[in-house]
């Protein structure tokens, strides 16, 4: 192999690695897991490999596409924040136009694939992408701290889409599952905005801590944690989850509530970090329980 060919391969590998990081694999993976769990919760014939791959593929592309588009749009504010200034978009490692093209291509293929599978499913996947990119990022993120509600609604779409695909319609359980995600997202993002408050202030992005103060933010985290846990348990009952699994969901929810109480009455950097991490583990565990229950 010539040196030029080797160099070309290395460049491609490096670029793929850069774009992979732009899809925020952990966050995308977690949202993908909620979509698959939503689909399986419908207790439809889940071992249809074509459909499962379709759900996984379309959701992955749509979520990854919207994430890349967010990165493209936020590249100027990312460059001002210590936490994000090394991202490929804000550090100039990839060209702006190329990122936009990749984001659009991923999004179009993802949503197109979803629409081809089922119109309702495709519509909900598109709604998630629209709320995330247009409403949350482009319209509201730089204007109001309440933009996170729309980010939350967007994050709730994969689980609703998955369940709607399995059933063929939207039911109260799907909406409750979506509410579980919607209320879980502030627990996750507000702890994050408290940890990186200076970064957000430097980028002039309004957040709950900077707009309403830490006390109000902590109270919001506590209330949203209670609502998230309650929604997941109600949805679990609705799905017909076995008592043992509901017990386990209750235990995990109690851990979430305990940390929410701790952050309200005995706030510290450690508790903040613990709640941030635990919230992710909680949601992943809840999704695994939904899947195991059905299998």
């Amino acid at each position, binding site marked *: 192999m010539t040196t030029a060919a080797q160099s070309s391969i290395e460049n491609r590998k490096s670029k793929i690695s850069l774009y992979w990081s732009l899809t925020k694999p952990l966050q995308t993976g977690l949202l993908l897991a909620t979509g698959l769990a939503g689909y399986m919760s419908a207790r439809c014939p889940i071992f249809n490999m074509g459909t499962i791959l379709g759900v996984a593929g379309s959701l992955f592309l749509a979520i990854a596409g919207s994430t890349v588009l967010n990165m493209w749009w936020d590249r100027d504010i990312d460059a001002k924040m210590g936490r994000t200034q090394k991202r490929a978009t804000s550090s100039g490692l990839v060209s702006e136009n190329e990122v936009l093209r990749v984001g659009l291509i991923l999004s179009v293929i993802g949503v197109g694939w979803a629409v081809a599978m089922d119109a309702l499913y495709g519509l909900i996947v598109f709604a998630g992408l629209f709320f995330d990119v247009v409403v949350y990022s482009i319209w509201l993120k730089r204007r109001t701290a309440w933009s996170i509600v729309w980010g939350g609604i967007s994050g709730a779409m994969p689980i609703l889409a998955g369940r709607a695909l399995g059933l063929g319609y939207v039911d109260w359980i799907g909406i409750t599952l979506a509410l579980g995600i919607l209320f879980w997202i502030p627990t996750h993002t507000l702890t994050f905005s408290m940890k990186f408050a200076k970064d957000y202030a430097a980028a002039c992005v309004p957040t709950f801590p900077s707009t309403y103060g830490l006390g109000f933010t902590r109270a919001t985290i506590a209330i949203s944690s209670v609502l998230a846990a309650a929604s997941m348990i109600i949805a679990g009952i609705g799905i017909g989850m*076995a*008592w*043992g*699994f509901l*017990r*386990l969901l*209750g*235990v*995990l929810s*109690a*851990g979430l509530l*305990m940390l929410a109480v701790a952050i309200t009455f005995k706030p510290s950097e*450690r508790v903040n*970090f*613990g709640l941030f*991490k*635990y919230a992710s*583990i909680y949601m992943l*565990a809840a999704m695994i*329980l939904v899947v195991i229950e059905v299998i």
Partner: protein
Amino acid sequence: MKMTPLHRVLLLVTGILAAYQVAVGIDGFDALPIIAYTIAFGVLLVAGILLIIWGFDVLDSPAVVIVSTIIPLSLSLGLVWQHASFRTSYLVLAIVGFLAVTLTRSIPAPGKIPTIVLALVHGIAGMTIFLLPISLSIQGRTQPLFSLVGVGGALIGLGGLLLSFLKAGRPIVSRETILNVLPGLLLLMTICFVIGFKFG
């Protein structure tokens, strides 16, 4: 001391086994034992997750003493309720014991009262978990493997002892040794409980 990947794996497996026990391992029991075991294994599960997230430094928190009292107290309560005749007395003892530990650790108490209360509560709960299953197995009232619950009780006692020495600042072995051993000890203890309840 920094937690190693091996420690995290051991704690993760402990958490998974505790989760299994909550979800599947206690099905079919009466209401109170189910509640008691759910609390015991639930606390073990959540504590394991938090230990993975926060690392060993979290063991320096004063809340650890109270949380680590819940596990033996609720486990012993479940065992007594299922297999012994002094159910109500033990339920009262468990509640009073827990409140006593919480109060003496939350508000200033004179002299050695907090230590005495803690030793008494842990001692009674630990001996119950250790002796009751072994005694039942020997009498033939349960399967022989139920004695593993007693072995788990001995291990939980050992873990509690090591943690107490650590918190008292007078460890019989070094802090590093205790922390190195703790995840493995927790896993071994949980394995004993899971097997003991499953086949006992």
